[in-house]
């Protein structure tokens, strides 16, 4: 079965945001991490915020990822996120600093192991 793709052009962004273009707060960056608060009820949320909450359920996601998964432009996603921050459904966090690269010795071991197998 082909995985169903959400139709992008069907529901236009102005319906999603109710015609608003400005997020209620200007705290979002492409890499801002969004974390859902699980104790908040989902009732009263529109379909997109609901999906957003479900997306973030598994852990932190960046704004860009959220937008990509929802299939919405980033600026529209920011409007939604602003509302959710206002209602306390999500909290944001600055992006995690880049992780340390694995040591070359470890990489070498992995390479050796792969070579031994193949």
């Amino acid at each position, binding site marked *: *079965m*082909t*995985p*169903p*793709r*959400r*139709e*992008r*052009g*069907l*529901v*236009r*962004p*102005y*319906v999603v*945001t*109710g*015609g608003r*273009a*400005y*997020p209620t707060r200007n705290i979002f960056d*492409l890499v801002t991490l969004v974390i859902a608060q699980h104790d908040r009820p989902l009732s009263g949320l529109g*379909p997109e915020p609901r*999906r957003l909450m*479900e*997306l973030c*359920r*598994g*852990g932190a996601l960046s704004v860009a990822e959220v937008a*990509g*998964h*929802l*299939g919405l*432009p*980033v*600026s*529209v996603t920011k409007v939604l996120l602003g509302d959710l921050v206002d209602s306390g459904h999500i909290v944001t966090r600055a992006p995690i600093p880049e992780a340390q690269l694995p040591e070359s010795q470890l990489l070498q071991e*992995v390479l050796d*192991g*792969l070579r*031994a*197998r*193949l």
Partner: protein
Amino acid sequence: MTQHISEVVFWCLAAGMLVVSVLLLRQRQMTTGLRKHNAALESSLRARDEEARHLVEIRLPAAADSGHQALPAPGLLDEQLTGTAYAWHLQKATELFAGAVDKAQARADQSAKAALKASMRALQGLAHEQQLAISGMQDRHDNPDVLRDLLEIDHANSQFGRRAQAIAVLCGSWPGRQRAASPLLDVVRGATSRIRDYRRVRVHTQVDIAVASRAVEPVVLAVAELLDNAARHSQPNTTVEVNLQPAHNGACVVIDDAGVGMDGQEVERAGRLLSGRRSVDVSRLADPPQFGFAVIGVLATRYGFSVSVDTRSPYGGVRAVLFLPSVLLTHVTDEGPGALPAVISHAAPLVGAASETIHNQAISPADLDPAAARPSPPRAPAGRTDNAGRTDNAGRTEHAGRTEHAAHDEAAEEPIVHGSTAGGLPKRRRRQPIRDRAATGATPAAPLPAAEEAPARSAEETARRMGAFARGTRSGRATAPNDEEGNSPA
């Protein structure tokens, strides 16, 4: 002698007189008869003249006006002519005339429709192109000021596209866009996107019903026309309420407005148009043309849903009900996050975005339950794979697919210990934080009890299937006929 002569003369005269009087009498009778006949003929002629005048002045214009409406045509003026050849010929002439008028009208209508259709298709294409451009801009620009302007343009463009589409459909075109099956809620919101007062529309219910792919665009268009009617005929401070209701053999979209409503005549006209039974004459729509109901009627007949507007809304306006039969519906399960990995692993492991997954009702518990799916054909190579796994331990070269499958068999017994491969590398499993959480938490929309077991094995299931696929590919390519595994490296 003289007496005799006079007598003879007398008798002769008498006889002559008799003859003359008889002749006179006869003549008189004939004259009267002729005069009568003449008068009758004259009156008949006058009647026919009158009849011809009646034909020209009343019957033919009536025939020309009625078009293809089934109005009672005005009959003969003089009842005496009924049944005569003259009347029959008049009738024939009337029919010929009506036929010619119909034909001319049909031709005019057809050419008008063709011209309109072609131009509207062009506009539709442009609107679509522009929508794509606007979507691209919305994605590219991350500035609220730009977004605000883009949203306005987008809104205007959507309405423009809908108008063009509606006229094109009325002229016999197809709605023109293929869409994937979409939840009914999205369909209604898609319709909301295309009307002017989209902010006034409130959609209340969330139902897990989806509209089949081929019906998405027509239903969007029909609902958009209904919503547009509702919003246009109600005050700007009122809302248009939309309710989605599952029905016995379908689903309903109920649209209530708090507007002025329609009187009996309008309801009757709307009902006639919505039934879509007779073709709509483009040139006969009112001025300004009211396409809405006619378009819905055309779409409803073509795709098999039905629309009625003859109920009064409790809000005071019109209640429009669009009924979708189950043929046009598929099922969407608004699954809780718990069921998410299961469905993803069955469909495609990489697409993890969709939390609402649409699938056909054909998906049964057996599809969701790996235990039920276990004795399927891929089982047959499994035994061989086990053997292969053992030979791997003996030091022979191995293939990744086989290892994966060996891992599956191992993990089926011990789901927690993932172990390591024969080469000594640790085995990596897909992490499932979502599933774990869902297993403990409530899954409100879990569709079936069997689906709750499904996530626990989904990773193995995926591995098994992919392994089977890889093995199948390899064995198909293998050429050595005596090789019992069919895939051993020579």
